[in-house]
């Protein structure tokens, strides 16, 4: 998630074109990260020191680590710890940007600092984003307000399932309030309990098939019963996790009713509800959870 957000930031700042963002997104899934990039990202060596080691390596039959330790840039223990640690996702992104000559290491690091300042994030928040902490994204990036505590938990559960079963490259858009929302397709499920809710998932009309295929692992080719059922079942699984979480945490007890799928309609509510739009490589999607008492679907 952080990589996608940072790519979007680089696009907004004019460092990358839309096509480059798409290409980098694909490439970072398969790119291998050289040890030089890992030690820079771990803050143990500078890009100048890495360049010096690589220059030395080009004329000597020695490994990167041996040279870096010999030159005194890094200790044996530090080097061993870098080898043991799985690189964070954004490190792969840095590698693609530099490998393709779109930005150099220092420029990437500078922009990570600029990104943190632009979003007004403290170091702890930034560390959680880099660790792909979904709740931090929902609160700090989408800015789902404290006035919608249940929706915030629903959004967190929903996005966790998206990143686990559909696609990790999620980009959250800013959340907003609405009273009306027209849809082409909508999956919704009633949660019966105190202040009963409709949990709603509005799939992208063009991206719905890809989403359904990725989740169900079945050959969904048309907007047919299988496609609709995949979307409904996805929502059902999210809502099951959501009500279990609410029960386990002692927040509230809800019971699920069977999910439904609707086409060409509108959600209308007398009280505003929070909408969280998000982007996936296959399209634009949205979730929301208005109170049943004040809502018609």
């Amino acid at each position: 998630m952080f990589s996608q957000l940072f790519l979007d930031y680089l696009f907004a700042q004019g460092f990358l074109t839309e096509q480059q963002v798409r290409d980098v997104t694909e490439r970072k899934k398969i790119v291998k990260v050289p040890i030089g990039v890992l030690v820079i990202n771990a803050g143990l060596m500078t890009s100048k020191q890495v360049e010096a080691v690589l220059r030395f390596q080009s004329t000597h039959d020695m490994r990167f680590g041996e040279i870096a330790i010999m030159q005194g840039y890094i200790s044996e223990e530090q080097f061993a710890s870098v080898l043991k640690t799985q690189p964070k996702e954004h490190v792969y992104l840095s590698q693609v940007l530099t490998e393709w000559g779109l930005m150099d290491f220092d420029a990437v690091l500078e922009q990570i600092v600029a990104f943190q300042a632009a979003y007004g994030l403290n170091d702890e928040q930034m560390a959680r984003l880099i660790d792909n902490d979904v709740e931090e994204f929902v609160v700090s990036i989408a800015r789902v307000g404290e006035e919608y505590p249940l929706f915030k938990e629903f959004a967190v559960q929903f996005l966790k399932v998206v990143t686990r079963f559909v696609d990790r490259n999620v980009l959250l858009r800013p959340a907003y309030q609405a009273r009306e929302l027209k849809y082409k397709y909508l999956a919704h499920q009633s949660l019966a309990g105190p202040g009963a809710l409709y949990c709603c998932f509005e799939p992208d009309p063009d991206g719905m098939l890809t989403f359904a295929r990725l989740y169900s692992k079945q050959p969904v080719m048309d907007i047919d019963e299988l496609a609709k059922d995949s979307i409904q079942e996805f929502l059902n699984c999210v809502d099951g996790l959501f009500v279990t979480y609410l029960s386990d945490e002692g927040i509230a007890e809800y019971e699920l009713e069977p999910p439904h799928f609707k086409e060409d309609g509108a959600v209308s509510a007398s009280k505003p509800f929070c909408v969280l739009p998000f982007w996936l490589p296959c399209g634009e999607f949205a979730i929301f959870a208005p109170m049943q008492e004040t809502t018609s679907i």
Partner: protein
Amino acid sequence: MATFVLIDDSLVARTFLRRVLENEGQSVVGEAENGLAGYDVYAKFRPDFVTIDMTMPVMGGLDCLKRIVADFPNARPIVVSSVGKQEQRQEALRLGAVQYLTKPLDVDEIKDVIKSL
């Protein structure tokens, strides 16, 4: 090889379960998309195991489980639900379920359950 009936309103969930079970050499002899129809399919085939989803239209999983266990005391139901609440889990096991699985289903978990049955 054991025989199974699958009761779930989700076509995707039934198809997934059928595929995993058949890949493991088991036989799925019938399916139904709600508890009421599921009871009839169970009564017709009397399989070794029946998987029952909890959240279904017409008749929910808990009522279906109660009816099957009441009329077929040797039934071996496996509950498959997106809800993992402890209270619901305990209730299903108390009513006679031999296993309680939570969705999204995991292939390895289903394989482990098959081995343990």
